[in-house]
C-alpha cells in the first residue's frame, strides 16, 4: 500500500484559497501602493511587505501563505510571540492589532499590512518596563514562562479596554490563553495590581 505523505490537515492548500480572497476584499485598501482597478494577485512567490510594528514600519519578505506570527518571528526576530498550537486555540501568539488582541497564527502577514501592530517587546522598550510587566514579576505570574508573553498581551488588552476589570471580565479576556504550568490566578493578580496602580493602558 502506498500512503500519501500528507501530514494531516493541510493548511497550505487552505491558506492558498483564503489568502487570495482576503487580499481581494480587505488587503488592498491596506496595501502601501496604489489600488489597481482589478484585484492584483500575489503569490505563490515571495513578496516584500511593510508592517507597522510597535510604531515603526519594517520591511519583511513573506509568501502569501505566511502567517503574521511567522513574519514577526522569522522575519523580524520578534520572538516574544510563540507558536504553541498554530490553530488559534492557545493564545501563545497574542499580539495587538489596532489595539485588539489577535492570534498571530490566524492572521496572514499580508492582511496585517497597514494595521498598527503591538508586540510584547514594546512594553520594555523604554527605561522602565511597563507596570504590567513589572507586576507579572511581582506576582510570580509565570513558571516556565512560555505562555507568559501571550498572557501579558491579553492582560494588556483587558486593561486597555476595561480600566479596572472585574474578575469575570478578566476571565473572559484571558479565556483564550492556555497555561500548562497553571499561572492563571497570579496573572489575574498582576492585572488587578496594575489596575489599582492606575498605570494600565499607558506606558
Amino acid at each position, binding site marked *: 500500500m502506498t500512503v500519501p505523505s500528507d*501530514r494531516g490537515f493541510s493548511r497550505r492548500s487552505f491558506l492558498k484559497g483564503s489568502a487570495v480572497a482576503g487580499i481581494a476584499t480587505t488587503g488592498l485598501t491596506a496595501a502601501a501602493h496604489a489600488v489597481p482597478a482589478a484585484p492584483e494577485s500575489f503569490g505563490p512567490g515571495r513578496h516584500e511587505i511593510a508592517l507597522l510594528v510597535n510604531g515603526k514600519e519594517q520591511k519583511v519578505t513573506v509568501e502569501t501563505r505566511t502567517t503574521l506570527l511567522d513574519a514577526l518571528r522569522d522575519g523580524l526576530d520578534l520572538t516574544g510571540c510563540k507558536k504553541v498550537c498554530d490553530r488559534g486555540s492557545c493564545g501563545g501568539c497574542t499580539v495587538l492589532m489596532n489595539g485588539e488582541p489577535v492570534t498571530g497564527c490566524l492572521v496572514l502577514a499580508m492582511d496585517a499590512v497597514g494595521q498598527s501592530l503591538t508586540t510584547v517587546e514594546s*512594553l520594555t522598550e523604554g527605561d522602565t518596563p511597563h507596570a504590567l510587566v513589572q507586576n507579572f514579576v511581582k506576582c510570580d505570574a509565570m513558571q516556565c514562562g512560555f505562555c507568559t508573553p501571550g498572557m501579558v498581551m491579553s492582560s494588556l488588552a483587558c486593561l486597555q479596554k476595561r480600566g479596572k476589570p472585574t474578575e469575570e471580565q478578566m476571565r473572559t479576556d484571558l479565556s483564550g490563553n492556555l497555561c500548562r504550568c497553571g499561572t492563571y490566578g497570579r496573572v489575574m493578580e498582576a492585572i488587578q495590581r496594575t489596575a489599582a496602580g492606575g498605570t494600565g493602558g499607558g506606558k
Partner: protein
Amino acid sequence: MSTPRDVEITVGYPALPGLEDRLEKRTVKPAEGDAAPWDATTKFTTIGTDVDRVDGLQKASGRAKYTYDITFPGMLQAMILRAPIAKGKLKGLELDEASRMPGIGAVVALKDLGAKVRFVGDAIAAVAGTTLNHVRDAIEKIRAEYDLEEHNVDYVVATDAPLLSATGQIEEPWAEAAELEAALKEAKVTHEATYRTEVQTHSSLETHGGVARWNGNDLEIWLSTQATFGCRGELAQACKAKGIDVGTVTLHAEFVGGGFGSKFSAGIEGLAVCLLAHAAKVPVKLMLDRFEEHTTTGNRPGCLMQARAGVDADGRIVAWDWRSFGHAGFTGSGGVSVPNYYTADAKKRTAHKDLNIDADPPRPMRAPGHPQGWFGAELFLDELATKAGIDPLQFRLKNDREAIRLDQWRFGAAKFGWDAARARKNEAGARFLTGSGLASARWGNLGGAGRGTPHGITCRIHQDGTVETRSGAQDIGVGTKTMMAIVTAEELGIPVARITAMTGHTTDPSGPASGGSTLTPSIASAVRHAAFLAKQTLVEIVAKHIGVPLSEVHCAGGKVGSGTAQLRWADACKLIGPNPIDERGKRHPNYAEKPFHASQCGAQFAEVKVDTWTGLVEVTRMFGIQDCGLVLAKKQAESQVLGAMIQGVSYALHEQRIMDKRSGRMLNGDFLRYKITGVRDLPRLECHMHSIANGHDSVGAAGLGEPPSVATAAAIGNAVFHAIGVPVRHLPITPDKVLAALASKKG
C-alpha cells in the same frame, strides 16, 4: 572556619497553628570542609521570604530565548514525516524528489527499509529547508510504502486485559491469598470496586525539538529538555552510531517551556536535527508541531484498578487487596502506585500488569503512577468509610501512619472548614449539589547525593561585588535559578540583586535531570557549598588586608571584617583583583543519621458544585498544604503547588486522549479538542507551604515537582462522590459520566 566534626541540630518544624511543635535533636557529622548545617533554629534573612523570580523580567518581556526562539543567519527549518499507520513495516521510501524541491537543504531517512512501524507518528524521514512552507511542500513529495499489520490501540481489549463486566467492573477472579481472604472475612465492613483513568498528555507549551549547529566536528545544540547532560551524552553517542566523527558536544537549555517528565530524552527529533545540520552544513531548527507533541512524546498512561478491603469495628483497615492494569504503548510501563501509609497493619497485597498496545509509549509524567493510583485508592477509601459510617477525615486520622500528615489533616481541615462543609446538606431536588472531599499526597526524595553523582556548582565573586552561581542543569520553570540565587545570598549575607544565577549550559558544572523532584535536593547544598568556599576565600583576602587572624573575620549582613574593622561588601570585593574568586562547590553525601522524614507529605481539600441538569462539575475552591523540606524560594514554591493543583483539576475533569480504533490515530491531538484547564475553570485556590528542617544535608531541602500533583484529582473525585452520593470511578469526570451516575442512583 573549619567545620566541627559533630554538630547538634534541631530538625522538624514549629507548631502549625493550633497544634504542637515537632522538633527533635540530631547529632550529625558534616563532611570535612562542608558548611555547618542549617536547621529549624536558623534565623534566615532571605530563605523562605518572597523573592521575585530572577529571570522573571526576561520571561514577562518576551525577551527570554527558548530553544524555539534561537535563530542563525542561513538557518534552515525542519520537519519529520510521520507514519500514518499504527503497525507494520516500512516497505519503500523514496526521498529523491523531495530533496530536489526548491529551498531544500537536507533530507534524511530515520527508519530503515524493513523496519517496524510501531504507532501512528513513528518517525520515517526528516527534511530541512528555507522555510517550513518549503519543507511541507517537499514532505508531500516523499513516497513511503508500508506493509500493514493489524493493530490495537485500546488497552481494555489488549490480549492480557482482565475481563470486564458490562458496567466496567473487573470480573477476573483474584489470585489466591489465604491470609488476606481470612482477614477480609473477619472484617466488619468490606468493599470492592473498579476504577479507571484515561491517557493524559504532558502538553508542554514549548514542543520538543532543537537547533543544531556543527562547526567542523564540534556540535552545538539548543534543546528543549529537562536533562541537559543526559541529552548531551545521548546525542553524542547517537551521532557517532550514525557514523559521524563527533568532536565536542555542547548543549544549551537556558529557558525551557515546560517538560513535566516528557523531556528526559533528546528523542528522534533531537537526533534528526543533528543529522540534518550535519548534512546541510548550516544550522537547522526542528521543533515538533502540536499534533506530534500530543502523539509522539509520551503520556501519563491510563489504567484499570481494582481494590477490595475491609475495616474492623474501630474503622481500622485490616485487609487491603489491590491490582492494577496499566496501558503501556508498544513498549514502556504503565505502572501505578498506591498510598501505603493507611494500611501499615493490614494484611495486604498489590499487583500490577502492563498491557501493550500499538501506540506512543508512556513517559514519566509529574509523579508517575501516583495521581491515577491515588484517585482509585482515595475514592475507594471514601466509599469504604461511608459504608462503615465514618467521616472521611476521621477515617484518615485513624489509619494514616505519617505523623507530619496527621498534623496537616488537622490544620488543613480547620483552614478549609471541613466539618461545616461536610455537615451542609444539599436541598432535596436542588439543581446544583455541592460536596467536599480530601486526599493525601506523598513523594519520597531527599536528593541523595544527586543520585550518586557528585554534582557541582560554580560560585564566582567579582571585584565589582557581583556574584555568579552557575549550574549546567536546567530550570524548566520551577524557579531553580531563583533558588540558587536565594541560597547564595543567604550564605554570603548579601541581597539577591547582586547575584546572577545561570542554568542550562553544559559548559557549567554537571547537575541532574529535572525529574522525580530530585533537582533542588540534589544541588541546593552544592550551591551553598560553592558560596561557602567563595566566602572563605574572600574572608582570607580581607583578613590579610586588615591584618587580623582569619578566625576573627566574618562575612555577614553585607559586611566583611572583624570588630570595628568592617568593610562593606562592595569594598571588600574591590580587594579581589581582576580575576574573580572562582570556587567549585559539590554535593556531599547525605548525613548518615536518619533525617526527620524521608518523604514529603501533603494533603488537599476540594469543594465542587455539580449541575445535575448538565452533569457539569465545577471545582469551586481548594486548599492544599505541602511539605518540601526547608522551603527555599517561597513564592516560586507556592506557584508550583498552585500550578500542580490546576493541572490536577485538568486531569480530574477534562483530559483524555481519544484514539480512533480503526486508524490508530489520536482524534483530539490539538488544543481545540484536547482540553486542558483554562482560566474559566480556575477554582479559588490557596496553599500553605509547610517548611520542615529535614536535617539530611547542609540545607535540608526536598523536591517539590511531584508531591502536590498527587492528591488533586483524588480530592475532587471524593468531593463529587460527596455531592451526588454516588462515586464516579472513571476519570475524567465528564458530564456524561456524572449524568449516568445520577441516573444509576434514581434507578
